[in-house]
């Protein structure tokens, strides 16, 4: 090999080495995060009520560990046409304050997309929690799916 070829190879080798180091660093960060996150005890099913309205059925426990599931469901529910997301809480079994935090971050994201967030299926207990945390100032609570869909379609 000539000197310039050797220099080129060394530069490429250094770059690859550097990239490999960064890749390993990122993998370590992800491993650390996965280690710290127990399994989510929640299922979410996404369905369409209309072209502009999607419904996410929440079943199980709504706490900090539900974040990934919730965001995946939102990504699935939200395409360019959707203007409203409805959360169905009929099968909600448990929610703690971290779950409330999740709803706030979801709401911020939805507002950024110029969409609306509505809910239905909340028991009296969870409605009370929405009132305690003043989430009801920004998230509409409806009695039934029909009512929520009607409200969403009229937005």
């Amino acid at each position, binding site marked *: 090999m000539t000197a310039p070829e050797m220099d080129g190879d060394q530069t490429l080798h250094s770059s690859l080495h550097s990239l490999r180091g960064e890749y390993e660093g990122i993998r370590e960060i992800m491993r650390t995060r*996965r*280690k*710290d996150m*127990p399994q989510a005890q929640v299922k979410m099913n996404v369905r369409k009520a209309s072209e502009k309205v999607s419904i996410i059925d929440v079943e199980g426990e709504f706490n900090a560990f539900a974040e990934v599931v919730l965001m995946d469901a939102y990504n699935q529910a939200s395409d360019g046409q959707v203007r409203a997301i409805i959360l169905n809480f009929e099968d*909600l*079994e*448990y*929610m*703690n*304050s*971290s779950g*409330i*935090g999740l709803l*706030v*971050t979801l*709401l*911020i994201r939805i507002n950024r997309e110029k969409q609306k967030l509505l809910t239905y299926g909340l*028991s*009296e*207990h*969870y409605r*009370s*929690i929405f*009132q*305690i*945390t*003043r*989430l009801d*100032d*920004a998230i509409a609570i409806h009695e039934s799916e029909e009512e929520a869909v009607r409200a969403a379609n009229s937005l």
Partner: protein
Amino acid sequence: MTEESPPPSEEGKKQPRDAAFWAQRIERLEVSDVPEGAANVNVHGRREVGALQGFGKLWQKTYRVRLAGIDTTPEEVMRVWKEHFPEFQPPNSRFYPSMAGVAPGEVLFISASVGGMPVHTGVRVIYADNESFTVMTPEGHPESGWNTFSAYQDDDGVTVAQIQSLSRANDPIYEMGFRIVGSTEQERIWTHVLKSLAAHFSVNEPVTLEKACVDPKVQWSYVMNVWQNAGARSMLYTMAAPTRWIRSRIGRRNP
């Protein structure tokens, strides 16, 4: 403190297992017993405000310390944390729990010094279980939102103590203060708390901080929150201390 009676349970449906951990809904904070040393300024009569009702950017900050090298459970860590909550605070941030301590619905009074300025306020415990508790701020508090104190076990079986804050500056004055110096001070306070908690268990591990700006927009619709600014009102309260002293002396002379 008076609160609404609990809602009747729905017929045929069992109460959710988190029902006992949440505080009751109230319109405004009402305080009857003020712990010794605390100041009931900017607490009684205030509404609670969440992360949606403040003015400033919305931040989520997560502080963690791994209690490595000791054999303890999240429940034990939380028990100690609740019991010794005021002791783990730095000197410039005093908390005064009620006799019931850290329990759903209870108010924790706060007397702090922010940049040399006194701030008398409080927070209410809106959620508390064996592994976490969450406090919510009232109108006038520097922050509008929630702080959750929790303990959990990671996959290595190490107990981790965590403080997670999801909040905005309550008004423009606080927002400016946070941008210039306040957020560093706030981070120092929570780092101190976790270090103190860890030291209680004879652990000396670093505190990590992850922060994310959840909403970079300020909410101008809440600019008038400034009228409730606890810092400004606390300053007036402090300046009026000589007047209160004179009144109390006059009161003693002329019963």
